């Protein structure tokens, strides 16, 4: 293989426009007023999630995820969504409940870095069904390059260079392209900026305007929050604006990125929330087991999502306060 013969472009589909001028118009039109944005989860999803939207899911699959918002999107039966699947594990599993379950097709296009699996817990049988059906369009990336697409978007440039992907089928099935460094002549890969229509991020604390704090790893959320054209925050606790101003160094997402703030204690359940509660491995195991049989799975989804009125009821069905206290204990004294 010589440099001249290198494949210049991945053949994967580019789902979103990487033009930074296009994105600038959207951001120009956003309100920058320091206004209160607190609302309920159903209101936020109804108001800010449209069929056909491209979603970014914050956190890391089963850690600090916006479960309540994800459930509500499934419950409201949104259709034809696209997803940035950077280590999406349980969050992906939740969204897959809107495919192949007789309620239309929630997921239509997925930029993949990591899907279908739940890390050491194994593969999701239902997510496999969804992804092996041929009904969902894919484009391959890696965790870093997909995060880097958010970073390009957050920076306001149409692409960024990187030194991974090169030489692999991951590149060939991506929408990345080759570029040459104008200074060194080094062969590099360029990834296109990705401005999601909507991002969902669960945080520890937010004020009513959307100034947010996160404790522990931020994963890709610093960039995702800034890249998203619309952003719904769910938080463990609403705090006062005075509390935010007491320590501005701790603010990781500023209000002008945020469209809605929902207070949802235990909002990452059954995922882990650092310094708050550990993941509910029993519940995640039950979910995986239920998926083995489509009929069991249907019943399970009715019990957990479609047949419950809101996230509080889901928490109750999963063991309520007692179980949550156990998970808090596991987190604080591992």
């Amino acid at each position: 293989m010589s440099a001249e013969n290198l494949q210049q472009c991945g053949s994967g589909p580019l789902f979103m426009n990487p033009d930074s001028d296009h994105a600038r118009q959207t951001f120009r039109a956003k309100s920058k007023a320091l206004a209160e944005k607190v609302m309920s989860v159903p209101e936020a999803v109804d108001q800010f999630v449209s069929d056909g939207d491209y979603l970014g899911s914050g956190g890391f699959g089963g850690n600090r995820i916006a479960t309540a918002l994800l459930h509500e999107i499934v419950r409201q039966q949104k259709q034809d969504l696209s997803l940035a699947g950077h280590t999406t594990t349980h969050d992906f599993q939740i969204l897959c409940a809107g495919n192949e379950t007789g309620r239309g097709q929630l997921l239509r296009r997925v930029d993949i870095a990591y899907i279908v699996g739940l890390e050491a817990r194994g593969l999701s049988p239902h997510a496999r069904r969804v992804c092996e059906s041929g009904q969902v369009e894919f484009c391959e990336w890696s965790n870093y390059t997909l995060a880097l697409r958010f970073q390009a978007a957050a920076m306001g440039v149409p692409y960024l260079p990187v030194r991974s992907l090169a030489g692999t089928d991951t590149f060939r099935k991506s929408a990345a392209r080759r570029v040459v460094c104008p200074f060194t002549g080094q062969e590099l890969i360029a990834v296109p900026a990705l401005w999601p229509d909507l991002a969902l991020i669960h945080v520890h604390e937010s004020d009513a305007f959307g100034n947010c704090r996160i404790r522990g790893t931020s994963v890709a959320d610093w960039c995702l929050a800034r890249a998203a054209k619309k952003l719904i925050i769910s938080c463990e606790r609403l705090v006062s604006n005075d509390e935010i101003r007491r320590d501005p160094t701790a603010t990781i997402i500023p209000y002008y990125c945020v469209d809605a703030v929902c207070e949802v204690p235990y909002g990452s359940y059954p995922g882990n929330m650092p310094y708050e509660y550990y993941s509910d491995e029993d519940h995640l195991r039950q979910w995986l087991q239920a998926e083995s049989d489509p009929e069991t799975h249907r019943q399970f989804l009715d019990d957990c999502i479609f047949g419950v009125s809101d996230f509080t009821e889901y928490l109750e069905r999963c063991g309520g306060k007692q179980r949550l206290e156990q998970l808090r204990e596991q987190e604080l004294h591992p």
Partner: protein
Amino acid sequence: MSDYTRMELTICAAARLLEDGVIVVVGTGAPCAASMLAQKTTAPNLTLMFEAGGVGPQLPRMPISVGDSRTFYRGLMATSMADIMETCQRGLVDYTFLGGAQIDQYGNLNSTTVGEDYQRPRVRFPGSGGANDLGSFCWRILVITPHDRRRFVERLDFITTPGFLDGPGARETAGLPPGTGPFKVITDLAILGFDDASKRMQVESLHPGVTLDEVQNCTGFELLTKSPITVTVEPEDEQLRILRDEVDPDRYIIGRS
């Protein structure tokens, strides 16, 4: 010498490969167990990193996710995924541990799809996750995997993560950082490395009681051999005790076959 399982042997052998004073990016499972074991034995000054942002934790237990709170429990830093990946990209990270559904003679890894049709695969696996990045950036790739013909294949259905691609010089031509690539593959049968000249996989050490034929029979491509082939050092009692009592008391990893 105590009795031990093949998994215990594999983890102990992997742990010995990690030098003291280096940085390793690890996943969950066996790589994490091996790294924890190394920290508690031969490499007390080994720093663990996790791709979601955890740096230098004092792991209270094995994490379940590479992004869960244990990965930065009493850690030195809880940062972003990009910070971890960029630290690798700029050349600070010595080792990464990877796995996959398939591996070929050049150490290329598949964790994406099995089957002919990409759009309708026989099995859809998770995809790269951070593997493609870590396998591109870190100086040395370590692989821990069970050894069988389903995994060790002539031709991958999908090259997710770069090994030596199609041979000598291919990584560099593609634009990957020079001097990087697969270093060792630790299986339940042997420790394998890569021939300097051809970049093809070679048997370097056989686990006690395992024959070269047995290893070749479990491999879907022709293996080279490094001469002399050694016998893998057996786990020491103290190593086993620490592995069983401190690293994996729930037998989460070592309980597997």
